């Protein structure tokens, strides 16, 4: 198997638990102990209240398609996925994240705004799996 040619995330100390979870097939979110809210992307400070006491909790993996594009000019690593969907998903827990929606031959007709989605994981290498989404069954 040849090495993946696309962009691979490099975790930082405050995001490492997110990527550790993803590698094990779990979508992790940081929650603030002061205001009891989750946030994304993972930071060392709560963007809602400024709190610094955060703990990690597994998310449900359920979300809705908030907005998206269908990209026909692939970035490196996406050459065999043309066109592909880049989307913002709103998680059931509240935070939104940028991701891919993996469906065959994507068209606007197949992608309704607010449609329910479920997390899945695309393995890039031994250390990194990307959380991606598929239409909820």
């Amino acid at each position: 198997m040849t090495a993946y040619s696309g962009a691979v995330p490099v975790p930082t100390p405050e995001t490492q638990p997110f990527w550790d979870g993803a590698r094990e097939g779990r979508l992790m979110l940081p929650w603030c102990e002061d205001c009891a809210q989750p946030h994304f992307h993972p930071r060392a400070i709560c963007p809602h209240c400024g709190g610094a006491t955060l703990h990690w909790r597994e998310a449900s993996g359920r979300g809705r398609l908030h907005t998206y594009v269908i990209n026909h000019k692939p970035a490196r690593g996406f050459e065999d996925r043309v066109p592909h969907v880049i989307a913002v998903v709103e998680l059931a827990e509240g935070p939104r994240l940028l991701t891919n929606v993996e469906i065959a031959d994507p068209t606007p007709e197949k992608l309704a705004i607010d449609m329910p989605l479920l997390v899945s994981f695309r393995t890039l290498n031994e250390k990194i799996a990307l959380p991606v989404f598929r239409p909820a069954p």
Partner: protein
Amino acid sequence: MSRVAIIGAAETALGKRPDVSRLALHAEAARLALADAGIRMRDVDGIFSSVADPNELSEYFGIVPRYIDGTSVGGCSTIIQLRHAAAAIAAGYCSVALIVHGESGRSWIDMERPGTAASPVGQFETPYGAAGAATLFALPVLRHFHQYGTTKLQMAHVPVATREWALLNPKAIMHKAGPISPQDVLASRIICYPFNLLDCCLVADGGGAIVVVGPDRARDAPKKPVWAIGTGEGAAHRQVAMMRDFTTSDSAVVSSRQAFAEAGVRPTDFRHIMLYDAFSFTPMLALEDLGFCGRGESGAFVSQVTDGAYHTGPGGALPMNTNGGGLSHGHTGRYGIFALIEAITQLRGEAGARQVKELELSLVHGPGRHFAAAGTVVLTNR
């Protein structure tokens, strides 16, 4: 704010310029703007730049400025820097501010991509193939369509009206390319749905610069000064996916409110506006955020035709992006300086066939990154 005067403004030729580096484009732009202002390089004591560090330019130009500003937040950086120059001049920190931009956006000579694979963008956006500006600027669009019923056909009118202006501007890359129709936009190659090729700006090499001074020095300028009378800025996030609401840019609202309040003006006071158009949708969101139309009404606003003229096109009531915009004039990657230069050109009465008659007031507004930061200035010739 205290008024500051723009006494020099110039842009380089735009297009494919494989023989000129990033720093050489800065030098060309600086030389042209200083000549326009009748100022020598050694009299510049404030450097404002974003694609080059101010220290790179001090060295390249052989000067030792006593004030520097390297604010780098994307396309609106130069618009924000005009605000910073006004503050610096008012504080006495510099007396001749050179805001200079050069970008080898097409030939990519001595350019670098921002961010690392460990940055939030590098971890949470780029790995999903969200790398080009089209993918990132397109993301909010379908949410707006969904929420307000805006259509791709309505959006296609933006490049059409903007092309009409380019046909009147000899410096525009598309000056001789002929008119286009909304159907041409919809039929052009798909780049990143909902954007087709003609929804996208023209990637070019080029640069531009303006020279800013206080009222005392403005009296000696060879040309009638253009005054900045209101400015604003804002920054809300870095990644487009972190927009709080995909149908409004928080930073654009914060930025424009400051500028309007400082200048004591309202949207209805303007008969000329420059709203940064990286893509067809970009100025639509600004029209709503700045209050030129209501929420969700930008689709109807940009497709409105009266007596054969677009509302924002030649012959319309609110001329917008009169140089041909990023869509048909040219876009180096950070377009803000070109919007500023066009507003100054119009207020000087030097815009030739595209001149807006009896103009006294203009607005320049743009986003930084993808609706992340924003800068706004209100300009007048009175």
